[in-house]
């Protein structure tokens, strides 16, 4: 029996409540002290297309998903058709028996190749092209089938709570499927009820009805007897305090914490969630420590808190330049977008660079080019972020690898932006935005805000915004600060900010601006430039950046558990490139392997460009779904075993 080591999926039509039910499942597990990693997949569609939520549960911290499904919770036909082949032979499928006659051709949202593949599979087994056939195919492999009479249960709930129409309860089938899953797994129902109550806390009557329905489904499964089922979940004592959150919340919390007080956005998947989270929570509790001198300020903060203005703009051009305008006035400001929106921001980023405006662009990468696959994952914008815009213009490109980094790195992004007075592009992606994870309660004691070198109000002073200084940093005044009149222009400028085409000044100003990147490399702590994991002396070292980190670390744990030696160099600062660290850590390794969620392995090129080191192996994935722990483990094992193709393309995931 496998205890507390599970992959569970729930699927359904978009708009039918799949996210809420996954939230119930994840929370119920988390309440029981289990570690949870969740991954959300959905179409670019409001209603009707197939979405699913995959949750992995374990007794130890986990950072990625696994492809094999142990329990598949369904309430529609499409979810069964799409996922039944991925259920392990010791697993189970929860389903609505009223659907068994549904044919493949009855499901219009299945793409033609999927239909074809399903039909071939079932025909080969001599089974019908129906849900019955699919279920039988699974059962032949040993998969347990657990029917839940959804409509009977809904009728029971309707009767008990005097609901006049069953259609009002239709979304409850989600919770029935979740609760039936927990019945299969012999999990503690108290935790399930608690999670249901939390997720539906906005309306007490709805919460009660759902708890009642959940109990019916749970009891039915337990009564049927599931003793021989190979998978179990059981609460374990949690020694630490944990939160369960999504990546977009992690970045949003980072923005609150960082002092970001002005955020712009134009609606785009998967970036909008963050802005909406900020707007929903725009009044921020605040206060100074009692020993702080500014008593008046402290009193105001205590009473009114801080607040963040979130502006939905007319386009992404307005989003970046409005953020620039707010930054000039002295607010920490940022915008959040994805590839297509980032494309529109080039001129605003270049303007910020030449005028040394601190602004943060949170770039949620998704599959491109063009509209690409708007709701699917890719790390396709590394080179784009580094080179965005025309001319030589300084920017810092900083990539987070997991939810914790996303939170803390957001604060650091603002610190870098203000310290080096230049745009910072914080690279995150769809996988991070839509992953949920249990994490230790964030430790905020060490968080510091560094506003860089600021000018002070002066009388009759000679303030020059772009004063040439030894390190290239000029004290920064903000609009409205007495005695600090300055000019900005997208043209090359003199120390005051007036237009110049003087060749000598041009050289001085270019050198000043670009030189800040060298300063950043000197000053930014090594831990923010890279992180090294695994065996220090490994011959095989993975190089990567961004959200592949979770799958890499989990796959390495498996490989190292098998007695293999492997290391992982995670690049966090991508521009300016940490050349010396990279050279030192990669020189002399015989077996370097690049892992990226894109087609062309841009990190391989960057490493070669900056260090001359050749990375001979690449593992890439570009079908839009994040790498799983198991597929990456297999690909890395092939590299370690010396029988890998130079370029392996991963393809798992629906």
């Amino acid at each position, binding site marked *: 029996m496998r205890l507390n080591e599970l992959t569970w999926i729930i699927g359904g039509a978009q708009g039918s409540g799949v996210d809420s039910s996954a939230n119930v499942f994840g929370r119920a597990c988390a309440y029981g002290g289990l570690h949870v990693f969740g991954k959300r997949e959905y179409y670019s569609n409001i209603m009707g297309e197939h979405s699913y939520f995959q949750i992995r549960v374990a007794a130890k911290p986990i950072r990625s998903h696994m492809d094999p499904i142990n329990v598949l919770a369904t309430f529609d036909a499409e979810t069964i058709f799409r996922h039944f082949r991925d259920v392990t032979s010791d697993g189970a499928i929860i389903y609505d028996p009223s659907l068994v006659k549904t044919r493949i051709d009855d499901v219009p949202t299945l793409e033609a190749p999927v239909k074809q593949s399903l039909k071939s599979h079932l025909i080969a087994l001599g089974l019908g092209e129906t849900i019955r056939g699919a279920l039988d195919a699974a059962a032949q492999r040993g998969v347990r089938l657990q029917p839940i009479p959804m409509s009977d249960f809904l009728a029971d709930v309707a009767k008990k709570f005097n609901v006049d129409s069953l259609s009002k309860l239709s979304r409850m089938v989600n919770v029935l499927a979740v609760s039936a899953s927990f019945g299969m797994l012999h999990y503690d129902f108290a935790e399930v009820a608690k999670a249901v109550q939390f997720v539906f806390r906005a309306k007490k009557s709805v919460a009660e009805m759902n708890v009642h329905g959940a109990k019916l489904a749970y009891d039915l499964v337990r009564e049927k007897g599931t003793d021989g089922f190979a998978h179990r979940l059981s609460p374990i004592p949690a020694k630490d305090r944990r939160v369960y959150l999504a990546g977009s919340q992690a970045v949003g919390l980072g923005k609150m914490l960082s*002092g970001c007080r002005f955020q712009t956005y134009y609606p785009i998947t998967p970036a909008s969630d963050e802005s909406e989270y900020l707007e929903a929570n725009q009044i921020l509790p605040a206060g100074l420590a009692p020993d*702080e001198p500014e008593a008046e300020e402290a009193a*105001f903060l205590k009473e009114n808190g*801080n607040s*963040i203005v979130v502006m939905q703009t007319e386009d992404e051009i307005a989003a970046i330049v409005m953020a620039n*305008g707010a930054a000039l006035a002295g607010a920490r400001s940022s915008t959040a977008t994805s590839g297509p929106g980032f494309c529109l921001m080039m001129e605003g980023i270049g303007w910020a660079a030449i005028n040394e405006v601190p602004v943060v662009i949170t770039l949620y990468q998704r599959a491109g080019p063009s509209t690409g696959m708007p709701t699917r994952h890719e790390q396709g914008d590394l080179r784009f972020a580094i080179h965005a815009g025309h001319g030589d213009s300084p920017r810092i490109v900083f990539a987070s690898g997991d939810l914790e980094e996303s939170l803390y790195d957001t604060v650091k992004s603002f610190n870098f932006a203000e310290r080096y007075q230049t745009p910072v592009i914080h690279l995150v992606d769809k996988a991070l935005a839509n992953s949920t994870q249990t994490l230790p309660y964030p430790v905020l004691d060490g968080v510091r*805000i560094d506003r860089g070198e600021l000018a002070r109000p002066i009388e009759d002073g000679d303030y020059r915004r772009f004063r040439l200084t030894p390190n290239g940093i000029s004290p920064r005044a903000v609009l*409205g600060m007495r005695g600090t009149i300055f*000019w900005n222009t997208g043209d090359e400028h003199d120390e005051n900010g007036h*237009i110049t085409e003087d060749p000598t000044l041009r050289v001085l100003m270019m050198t000043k601006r670009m030189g800040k990147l060298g300063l950043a490399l000197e000053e930014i702590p090594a831990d923010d430039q890279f992180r090294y994991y695994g065996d220090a002396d490994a011959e095989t070292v993975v190089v990567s950046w961004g959200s592949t980190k979770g799958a890499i670390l989990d796959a390495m744990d498996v490989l190292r558990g098998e007695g293999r030696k492997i290391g992982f160099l995670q690049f966090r600062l991508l521009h300016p490139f940490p050349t010396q660290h990279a050279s030192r850590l990669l020189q002399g390794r015989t077996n370097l392997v690049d892992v990226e969620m894109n087609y062309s392995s841009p990190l391989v090129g960057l490493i070669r460009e900056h260090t001359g080191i050749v990375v001979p192996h690449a593992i890439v994935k570009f079908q839009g779904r994040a790498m799983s722990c198991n597929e990456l483990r297999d690909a890395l094992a092939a590299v370690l075993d010396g029988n890998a193709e130079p370029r392996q393309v991963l393809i798992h995931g629906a």
Partner: protein
Amino acid sequence: MAPETILKPADFQTEVHNDWCPGCGDFGILKAMQMALADLKFERHNVAMFSGIGCSAKTVHYIDTYGIHTLHGRVLPFAMGAKLANPGLEVIAMGGDGDGLGIGAGHFVNAGRRNLDMMYVIFNNGVYGLTKGQASPTLKLGLKPKSLPKANINDAVNPLWLAIASGATFVARAYSFDIKHLKDLFVKGIQHRGYAFIDVLQPCPTYNNLNTKDWYGGEDRHDESGKRMPRVYKLEERGFDPLVRTEDEADEKKLQALRVAAEWGDAIPIGVFYQNPLLATFEDRLREQIPGYMEEPPAKQVIADAAGRPTVRVQKFLDELVVT
């Protein structure tokens, strides 16, 4: 605190060399702006001027306040960002007709929807001067200034119509060679509580040989006594009343403004076409959501203590996410 020195128009002049063509209509706008700033007794550091790209955009370098010369077409969102971050600033945006109505037309419309308390001035001369006289969005269909190889085959947009349709709450037109009148409109526009748009007819002496100073001034036509008959006339001299006094007359006043703004050719009205001080500003609307917005706007908030520790207490939000 020492009593503030009241600045004169000349005090708002910088030493930067002005490289506009001789006879350019921009000079009048620059002078009127400096006069308006002095009239309003502004201190330098409370005024932030934003401009787009083009000859008009150089204006900010000639005025001794904050001068933010931005990107082609993007002046409004830059200016709005600064105003939203610090609503205490006097924010004035300016740019050319191509800047505001061509490449920046989307921002023009959306600025109207918001009604921030700021002013936007378009220098309207019908051509893209700095790139040598291509047709701008305000050049009438079929016209062929000497700089064009062929007559203009795009129709013109009416900036006043577009401003009214977009929601601007103060809409005016001025003529850059009537500096006193222009200055008065700037003062009114700045004092207006809400978004003020001023379209300034500004002849380009180098590329637009059709809508010239002489043409606007009527040098080509004379009455029976031989007196020239200017094309430009002032709305206020004909008893035009643009002011919305109750919310229910707003639409009627807009329609009235559209009718008079349709006039062109022999009679070109200048003055205030529409003024509605009753509509809530964007700042008012934000205040509904954030009660302390005006007192502690984004740019004025204390975000860290002396040791750099954040002042915000995100624990409240983290606690909502706690599972164990």
